[in-house]
């Protein structure tokens, strides 16, 4: 492969030390709960985010079941409001924002840049505790009565009228927000100051670039939503009237401040997905990524533009139409860096040696789904068309195409890709490939009908549609699809867990990928590298000619083996 680090098999005298890795160095529970090791904290995050994803998924299941009949099936209107709010809050604040940065970012960032740990290990552990505290408070709010405001907490409903656990849940989100901020601080400082010798900015894997852009937005945007939501709590509990219209306050101001965070938050959710996909596409195409600099800077461009488009959530909110025009225009600009990424990934695959392993299938599914999600975003970004589509299922379908089809698929792809590195075990890739196809089919079956029914006028957040029973066919299709999708989410849990017990040992680099994280053993030792790596080669430094030759050799060998086998079996028959 390459000469970046001392190849692990050259270290015969240290072979014994290699067997001790971050997983087996200590076994007590306190060694996990008080760890400073970024790899262990990543696994803590993996378990906890999966738990919250399961809860959010259950709420989604209830929503889909309720919508199979035009008059609703089981839920009261109030209960339905609480269920979709729970789904939104849990999925956004405890899963999507956290999942990829806190799990893969935590695990891989130091490995990819050749550091021993993140800059502030204790802060990192603290961020997990903050996340768990926030998550627990959110769940407590759901249990003690729930919230019915929707995940956006629009005032004055949330501040003056809603008689549910708004304050408790907001405090939970506030604390979880701090966990996001601390993760962002850790990443920024680590990327700036902890890179291994020779790891220049333009040798960084694209994963690191996108994580940097994500962290920027976490740091600069999260405090705004923290204070905005805190003011809602102040209004509810201390009667400080900030958004109260009857005293001259402006509820639309809440929307401005909320979306000043929450639009960047959309990119906090999707940029890490771009991070993962860049790694998958480059490594499974066995080719240096096409236009490395463009992909790297497009992440920063998305981060920058992401701060300038919040108003496109507010076209119908009594916002000035001049501002709507400007926001519509800038929203269209965001399509440029996004398209740069999509086209560069496709150009990378072109004439590459594409290996159809399960992570790559997820990546290709991501490309298809995200393109649909992104293009429908343009429909909604137009100030005119949006007025027709505001608060319909078209919007719901759009952001699920981006969030579920984008972030969730990238999460699954990344999980399969780095699973051997995290656990040191190989899983059954055939099962995983089938699962990727199931997820793709289930996803499209769930959300594509929602575009159609939304365009026809089905409002979001309604649990009945007796006024238009012809929508039922689409809703049933969608519910069927969500069942398939659920299967696709649950199945990996089984075969990945099985791999821990009966999976083959993974070598340092089971995928033949390129990058510092693949040059240390799997699972990595506690200090990540036995010696500080010195980076000598460029990023994604694949040799296409050699890869082609290797590919040919492999195919020929397989054919030779097959013909040998045939010959052998023929001889047996004789």
């Amino acid at each position: 492969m390459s000469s970046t680090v001392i190849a692990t098999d050259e270290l015969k005298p240290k072979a014994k030390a290699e067997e001790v890795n971050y997983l087996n160095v200590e076994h007590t529970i306190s060694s996990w709960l008080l760890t400073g090791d970024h790899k262990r904290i990543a696994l803590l995050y993996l378990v906890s985010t999966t738990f919250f994803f399961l809860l959010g998924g259950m709420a989604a299941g209830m929503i889909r079941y309720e919508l199979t009949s035009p008059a609703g099936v089981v839920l009261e209107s109030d209960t339905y409001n609480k269920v979709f709010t729970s789904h939104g809050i849990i999925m956004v604040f405890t899963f999507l924002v956290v999942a990829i940065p806190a799990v893969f970012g935590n695990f891989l960032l130091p490995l990819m840049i050749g550091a021993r740990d993140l800059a502030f290990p204790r802060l990192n552990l603290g961020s997990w505790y903050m996340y768990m505290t926030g998550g627990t408070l959110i769940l407590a709010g759901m249990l003690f009565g729930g919230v019915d405001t929707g995940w956006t907490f629009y005032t004055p409903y949330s501040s003056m009228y809603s008689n549910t656990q708004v304050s408790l849940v907001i405090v939970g989100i506030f604390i979880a927000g701090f966990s996001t901020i601390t993760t962002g601080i850790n990443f920024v400082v680590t990327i700036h100051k902890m890179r291994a010798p020779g790891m220049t900015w333009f040798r960084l894997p694209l994963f690191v670039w996108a994580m940097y852009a994500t962290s920027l937005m976490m740091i600069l945007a999260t405090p705004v939503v923290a204070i905005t939501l805190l003011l809602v709590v102040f209004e509810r509990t201390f009667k400080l009237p900030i958004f109260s219209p009857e005293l001259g306050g402006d509820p639309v101001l809440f929307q401005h401040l909320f979306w000043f965070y929450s639009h960047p938050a959309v990119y906090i959710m999707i940029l890490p997905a771009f991070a993962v996909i860049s790694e998958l596409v480059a490594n499974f195409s066995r080719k240096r990524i096409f236009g490395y600099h463009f992909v790297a800077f497009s992440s920063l461009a998305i981060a920058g533009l992401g701060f300038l488009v919040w108003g496109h959530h507010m076209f119908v909110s009594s916002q000035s139409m001049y501002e709507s025009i400007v926001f519509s225009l800038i929203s269209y600009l965001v399509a440029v860096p996004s398209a740069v990424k999509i086209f560069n990934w496709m150009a990378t695959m072109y004439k590459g040696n594409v290996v159809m392993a399960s992570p790559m299938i997820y990546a290709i599914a991501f490309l298809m789904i995200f393109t649909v999600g992104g293009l429908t975003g343009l429909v909604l970004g137009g100030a005119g068309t949006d007025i027709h589509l505001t608060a319909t299922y078209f919007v719901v379908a759009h952001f699920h195409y981006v969030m579920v089809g984008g972030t969730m698929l990238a999460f699954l792809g990344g999980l399969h890709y780095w699973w051997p590195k995290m656990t040191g075990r190989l899983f059954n890739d055939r099962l995983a490939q089938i699962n990727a196809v199931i997820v793709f089919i289930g996803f499209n079956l769930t959300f594509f009908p929602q575009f159609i029914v939304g365009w026809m006028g089905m409002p979001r957040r309604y649990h009945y549609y007796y006024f238009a029973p012809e929508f039922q066919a689409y809703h049933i299709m969608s519910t069927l699809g969500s069942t398939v999708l659920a299967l696709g989410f649950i199945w990996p849990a089984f075969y990945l867990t099985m791999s821990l017990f009966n999976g083959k040992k993974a070598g340092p680099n089971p995928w033949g990928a390129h990058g510092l994280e693949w040059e240390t053993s799997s699972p990595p030792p506690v200090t990540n590298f036995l010696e500080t790596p010195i980076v000598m080669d460029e990023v994604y430094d694949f040799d296409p000619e050699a890869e082609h030759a290797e590919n040919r050799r492999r195919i020929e060998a397989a054919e030779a083996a097959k013909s040998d086998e045939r010959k052998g079996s023929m001889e047996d028959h004789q």
Partner: protein
Amino acid sequence: MASSTHTHEHHIVPTRTYVATFLGLVVLMVMTVAIAGVNLPAIGPLSGTVVNQLVALLIAVVKAMLVISIFMGVKWGSTLTKLWVASGFVTLIVLFGILGDYTTRQFEHQPGWEKQADGALPRVTPNEPEVPAADSNTLNVKIRQ
């Protein structure tokens, strides 16, 4: 990498610099209190009230710069530190872009729009009474009487 050479031997600022800074801050504070009691004249399109406020803010900004550069040591810090110091304030300017909404709402109500049968929807319908001038605000909020 923005690693700085002078952090090897961290810069020790002499006490007199700190004393001078502190005294400067106190003088500025006295100045801003004194100026607040004086009605400054209007300058061009800015009314006197605005001039007063701008002067007060200008003094506050100078004080803030003193604290940031000397007390917080950014003057002797690395380029990276300086970039991060700037980043928060730059993003804050973007946040203040929300004002763009409130300042442009008034231009939306173009005379003649409400008369067109299928023109853009006006903000205030003609038969609704105008908000009294004393309470006029651009927030589109009705005042409780």
